[in-house]
């Protein structure tokens, strides 16, 4: 764990460590705990490396790098008994056992002219403490700063040596820990937000509008980099109302579209998502959940938008909600979301969470070879020659009407959020209203077999069930491994379509276990409530494990609540 004041460069140290461990063939998971401000205030980051795949924060800290007193206080609570503290002694002293202080800011301030290189010096000292290979340690700095080049690279390399020298001269530091090589090679370090942006590109997404909001903004920033090369357009809108309506307009005109946001923006977009639902315009919304309600805690983790999303908007309209667990899952589900939106002509929501969006993790390389673009019943530009009539809301077996975007020669239509007849004309006719409601709403039933399937982990004979979605799958995986080592079998169901609830998959799962813990980051047990609502016959089997303090689950938190093993 690396802690300091915002601007101290804690995230840089975490990034450097992540790069180093990855070079050693290890799996890496880094999380950050920052405040919603540009500079100042305590911020920390944690880096975990393992020979096994990890996607969760470790329960205790082995090594703490402290740039401020608050980090020391954190260490008091979080350190392992063998834990070691490396701190910047320029302005404070640590009273924790196993502490070694170096005045990093002073050490670099003289020769380099600015104390800001203290973080790289700390990385240098860490590399000695952890017994890093010096050449590889240096190459990480070269990679990290090569883009900035010149002076920045040179000064960081000097800072690295200053830190290394200090640590080598101090007794009891060098080689106190050691790093074993792993065999996880050819992996990438990425985040869920980057995966969603890449999935959007490969899935044929070409129009994105958004409004800056933590923790979703990076999706827009990545797309600003990626999309222009593919004739795509990214617009930063004046607000979320405009963002969602811009993608509605662009989708109606024939583009594949997406917006991304978080709770407060989602509240504003609710109006537009309802419009897309009524008018049957395909859109994809990535919701990067953070702590709510209201402004809540912008930089902290929660999974508390599901109830809102399942019931989102006034009136009733169909929607699909997909929840990826890892960046690789996010890459593929983003492509699925685009296809499903077009195929069924409705809003599809990608339900993400702050940890998935922003934590960096090693991932398999995203593989686009199996990707396909399914535009559903989209009419070709010469459709007018073959049709006798073009009804934009034509009644069909599956409720999906063929669509010709404006500009299709010889065809035009009326698209509206008013209740309408097959031609798109406003209608209050009673049989028509019933027909149109069924046309739209039954999509949620008829699409069942096309929606992404749940994944299960653990032996099917296990009698303790675990249910979750999103990044919670990381800690749950660790829970399963820990319990398995203790001889306790568990089976985890990771829901990837969370709405409509895949009863056909979750019902048999629940039937196969004696008890099922529904593990999620909110106060009211939102997913558990949905499961109880749709499968009341399993009511008594389900128990909630909840966390809503802004931090992700750590494996022991979960194990402590499993009554059969606690």
């Amino acid at each position, binding site marked *: 764990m690396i802690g300091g004041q915002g601007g101290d460069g804690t995230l840089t140290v975490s990034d450097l460590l992540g790069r180093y461990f990855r070079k050693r063939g290890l799996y890496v998971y880094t999380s950050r705990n920052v405040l919603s401000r540009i500079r100042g205030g305590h911020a920390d980051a944690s880096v975990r490396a393992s020979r096994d795949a990890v996607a969760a924060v470790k329960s205790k800290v082995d090594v703490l790098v402290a740039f401020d007193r608050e980090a020391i206080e954190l260490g008091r609570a979080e350190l392992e008994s063998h834990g070691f503290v490396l701190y910047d002694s320029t302005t404070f002293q640590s009273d924790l056992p196993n502490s070694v202080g170096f005045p990093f800011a002073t050490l670099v301030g003289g020769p380099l002219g600015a104390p800001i290189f203290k973080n790289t010096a700390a990385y240098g000292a860490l590399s000695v403490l952890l017994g890093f290979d010096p050449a590889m340690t240096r190459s990480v700095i070269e990679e990290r700063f090569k883009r900035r080049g010149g002076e920045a690279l040179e000064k960081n390399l000097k800072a690295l040596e200053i830190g290394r020298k200090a640590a080598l001269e101090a007794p009891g530091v060098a080689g106190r820990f050691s790093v074993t090589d792993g065999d996880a090679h050819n992996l990438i370090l990425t985040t869920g937000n980057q995966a969603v942006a890449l999935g959007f590109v490969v899935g044929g997404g070409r129009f994105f509008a958004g409004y800056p909001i933590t923790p979703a903004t990076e999706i827009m920033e990545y797309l600003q980099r990626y999309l222009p090369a593919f004739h795509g357009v990214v617009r930063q809108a*004046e607000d979320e109302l405009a963002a969602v309506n811009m993608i509605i307009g662009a989708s109606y*005109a024939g583009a594949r579209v997406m917006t991304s946001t978080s709770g407060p923006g989602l509240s504003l977009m609710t109006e537009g998502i309802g419009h897309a639902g009524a008018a049957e315009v395909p859109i994809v919304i990535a919701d990067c959940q953070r702590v709510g309600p209201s402004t809540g805690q912008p930089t902290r983790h929660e999974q508390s938008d599901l109830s809102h999303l399942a019931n989102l908007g006034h009136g009733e309209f169909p929607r699909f909600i997909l929840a990826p667990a890892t960046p690789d899952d996010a890459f593929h589900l983003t492509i699925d979301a685009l296809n499903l939106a077009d195929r069924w002509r409705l809003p599809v929501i990608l339900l993400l969470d702050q940890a998935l969006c922003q934590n960096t993790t090693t991932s398999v390389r995203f593989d686009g070879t199996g990707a396909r673009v399914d535009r559903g019943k989209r009419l070709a530009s010469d*459709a007018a020659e073959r049709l006798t009539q073009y009804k934009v809301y034509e009644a069909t077996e599956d409720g999906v009407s063929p669509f010709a975007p404006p500009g299709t020669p010889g065809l035009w239509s009326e698209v509206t959020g008013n209740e309408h007849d097959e031609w798109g004309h406003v209608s209050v006719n009673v049989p028509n209203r019933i027909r149109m409601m069924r046309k739209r709403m039954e999509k949620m039933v008829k699409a069942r077999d096309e929606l992404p399937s749940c994944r299960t982990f653990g032996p099917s004979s296990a009698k303790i069930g675990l249910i979750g979605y999103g990044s919670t799958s990381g800690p749950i995986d660790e829970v399963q491994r820990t319990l398995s080592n203790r001889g306790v079998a568990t089976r985890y169901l990771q829901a990837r379509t969370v709405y409509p609830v895949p009863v056909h998959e979750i019902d048999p799962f629940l039937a196969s276990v004696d008890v099922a813990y529904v593990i999620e980051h909110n106060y009211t047990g939102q997913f558990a409530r949905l499961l109880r609502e749709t499968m009341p016959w399993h009511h008594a089997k389900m128990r909630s494990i909840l966390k809503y303090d802004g931090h992700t689950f750590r494996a022991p938190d979960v194990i402590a609540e499993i009554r059969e093993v606690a």
Partner: protein
Amino acid sequence: MPAQSAKPVPPIWCPGCGDFSVLAAVKRAAADLKIPVHDLVLVGGIGCSGSIHNFLEVNGIHALHGRLLAQAVGVKLANPALTVVAAGGDGDGYAIGMGHFMHAFKKNASILYIVMNNETYGLTKGQASPTSQLGFEGNVEPPFHSILTALSIPAPNFIARTFSGDPKGMTAILSEALRFNQEGRGFAFVEDLSPCVTYNDTYKLWREKVVDVAKMPNYDPTDRKVMFQLCLEAVEQGRIPIGVFHRPKEVAADGLERKLVPGPDGPARTDIRVEPNYAAYEKLLAGLA
């Protein structure tokens, strides 16, 4: 035999409504410019005027209240080859849609926005709107003036005002506005003074008060400062200036869609199938560290 597409329905407007003039003028202007029906998109707002797209042969999309400009900009950026007209009322544009209204000038996408201003919320039976005069239905807020506001935003937009009592003048201005859009020069805003014969029948009053701004001394629609002053003076004298208020000197075709979509392949028309793009995707994915 060509395929049958949606047919217009009869207008829901009261006989004598100012919006009829706009409907006729839009039809004539589109015909003058020979825009094929399938290439014309009309984005309607909410309110009496916002239903205009139902009454003519066109690609119509009925937007949410106040959000028509955001949808219209989305349409244009996705496929710049389309002619895009947004049309709604004063409540739609200047109350609930005010944020998008202001930004539309700044964005400067080549779309036409027609606001049918009747100084009231007609469809909900005559409440005060942002443009209502003091005293109308107990209104105590001074009326909002769209032309003065539009002139205050330093962007190369086309800005004009018409009067439903002068359909000929309106057609000429709408034609000019659509040409401005076709040339990719940016945003065209036309406010039409469109009396609500049921809740705010201002035909007679407005006929007396309108003044052709082109006939005012020093008229120069390329000079924002002069036009602001002319307009403000007329308003202070209780007159209602109509005509073209801003016709930018620059003829550069740099509407937003031209800046963002340089080629003919906009987001809606580019080939998004995986196969033709695969090499580029591979390169992008291989670049990840």
